[in-house]
């Protein structure tokens, strides 16, 4: 009987040429990816990202800047803090590729060395806010009720101020320096992650596939681990990439304002601040660190976008 049923219901699908719409769409948008790789797998995410032009640029730039920054003491001809009074305010030349600043320090060395501050602050502060934010958001979303209200009202306190102002306030209390900067930016980033996680959990908890998992005797912890978290995590990954770029920029802003990394350490924002008086006569001093800030932020944003496309199984344009 089952056999007969099968013939009745499947016989016609066999002939090619009229596959489901979804199939067609997939072939269209992801034509460049080997069809044997299944969406959702890590391999697929990698394939999708490595085929994305923007992400290629972002990854190459990020790897390059990290590598150069780590190697900068060995590859640069000058130390980042070495002053050369003979070549103060020198325009870019073969001797100093990016020129020198008002104290005769080589801008190339400073920019490359300084990348580590921006990146370290951007990445570590994001890790801090992501971990705390995800836990708080997941707890609030899953348990709901009073727990949810308490946590969310508490986070509202943070969101009552513009995040940069809040970070400045933290810096003013904790003091300045790389670690304080990470702490300040990390704390101000918590509400963003918590809200995103909570909203995701709430959305997924009401999906019918969670109900259907209950009907097949799926234990609660398995529902959370297997059905809720995997579906909630992809926007978080995107948010992490975006947050790194945002916090990198914020670290430059704090340093520019004199609250972050201090002289003579060459943080990019701090470089902008110390040379801004020369913008008319020696614009390269400001433009070069500025370009690096822009490129770094852009790279992480492009990477974040590529992750969004690669991780979304529903192909929403």
């Amino acid at each position, binding site marked *: 009987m089952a056999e007969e049923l099968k013939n009745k219901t499947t*016989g016609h699908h066999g002939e090619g040429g009229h*596959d489901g*719409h979804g199939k*067609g*769409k997939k072939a*269209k*948008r992801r*034509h460049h990816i080997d069809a044997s790789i299944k969406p959702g797998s890590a391999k697929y995410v990698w394939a999708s990202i490595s085929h994305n032009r923007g992400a290629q640029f972002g990854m190459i730039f990020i790897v390059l800047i990290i590598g150069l920054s780590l190697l900068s003491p060995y590859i640069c001809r000058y130390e980042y803090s070495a002053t050369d009074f003979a070549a103060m305010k020198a325009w870019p030349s073969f001797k100093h590729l990016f020129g020198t600043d008002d104290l005769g320090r080589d801008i190339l060395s400073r920019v490359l060395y300084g990348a580590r501050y921006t990146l370290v602050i951007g990445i570590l502060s994001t890790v801090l806010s992501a971990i705390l934010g995800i836990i708080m958001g997941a707890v609030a979303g899953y348990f709901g009720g009073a727990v949810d209200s308490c946590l969310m009202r508490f986070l509202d306190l943070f969101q009552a101020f513009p995040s940069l102002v809040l970070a400045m306030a933290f810096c003013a209390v904790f003091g300045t320096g790389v670690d304080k900067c990470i702490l300040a930016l990390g704390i101000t980033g918590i509400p963003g992650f918590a809200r995103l996680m909570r909203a995701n959990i709430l959305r997924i908890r009401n999906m019918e596939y969670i109900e259907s998992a209950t009907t097949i005797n799926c234990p609660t912890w398995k529902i959370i681990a297997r059905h809720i978290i995997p579906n909630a995590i992809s926007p978080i990954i995107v948010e992490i990439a975006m947050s790194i770029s945002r916090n990198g920029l914020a670290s430059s802003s704090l340093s520019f304002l004199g609250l972050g990394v201090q002289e003579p350490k060459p943080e990019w924002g701090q470089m902008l601040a110390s040379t801004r008086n020369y913008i008319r006569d020696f614009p390269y001093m400001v433009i070069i660190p500025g370009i690096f800030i822009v490129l770094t932020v852009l790279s992480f944003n492009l990477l974040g976008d590529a992750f969004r496309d690669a991780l979304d199984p529903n192909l929403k344009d």
Partner: protein
Amino acid sequence: MAKTRENFFGIRHLTVKYHSGNSIIHAVNDVSLELKAGETLGLVGETGAGKTTIAKSILRILPESSVESVEGDIWFEGRQILDMNDKELQALRGKSISMIFQDPMTALNPVKTVVSQIAEGYRQHQNCSKAEANKRAIEMLEMVGIGADRAEEYPHQFSGGMKQRVVIALALACSPQLLLADEPTTALDVTIQAQVLDLIRDLRNKLGTAMILITHDLGVVAEVCDKVAVIYAGRIIEQGTLQDIYDHPTHPYTCGLFGALPDLDKDVERLSPIEGLPPDPSVIREHCDFMERCPYACGKCKKFNNHMIEMTPGHMVRCWKANEEE
């Protein structure tokens, strides 16, 4: 061409393509329709058949970012809609041609009272005072069965059926000559649907508005339409009067649709579904679109060039077997 131009409303060879990623979606292929003043045409088809795209092309409200090309002619009272400039279109939309959407909630502004929304729409096209527009709005609401006492309420205070009445009042406020109704009752319960269909029929008879009713429900079409066009994979595969289609369905797809419907008045042991799925819209076919699903398909169908065959005057079928079977 000249014939269409004389008519009240007509579409000739409308072809709409979207682009999606690296391929072209052929949403509407060579669709031609004609409508006389006061007539009601039912446009029937399944999800993705291109019904809504046709309606949106008429009002020129297709999403520009994803449209590849719109070709053909759309005539309204002797004027080419596809050649109109923005100003002419503004005058056309809402005044001469208006549209009712499927979801009444998204068609209304939640922060304005219903009477002010209708009055505002009216004043955009009619040169009149605020008081006059308000009076007209209340008249319209009363016409659709909403008392003046509820005119000052907000959309969220109305139930689904009542909201759809407000949308209808809004669409009819400027006495349009043509009304496009895109699944106007699909979101409503049956008893409410009956009320709304009744209302649409009454108003059409009273005001003489021509209408294109887009739906997937053959029952709804039978209730209100004079003419029917069945659309499949972006093409009209059969059109004619209500009697032509319901008494003598000819195209295998039309017959299939009737067969797939559980019938309240008859007892059938097993439904006869149309097997398979609609074809991939990104592929343009040389042969009949329905061939893969058609129970009567044969080798000759591969050579069929998708032209219409006239069965009786006005009853057109896109199947070469149409004449031979009967």
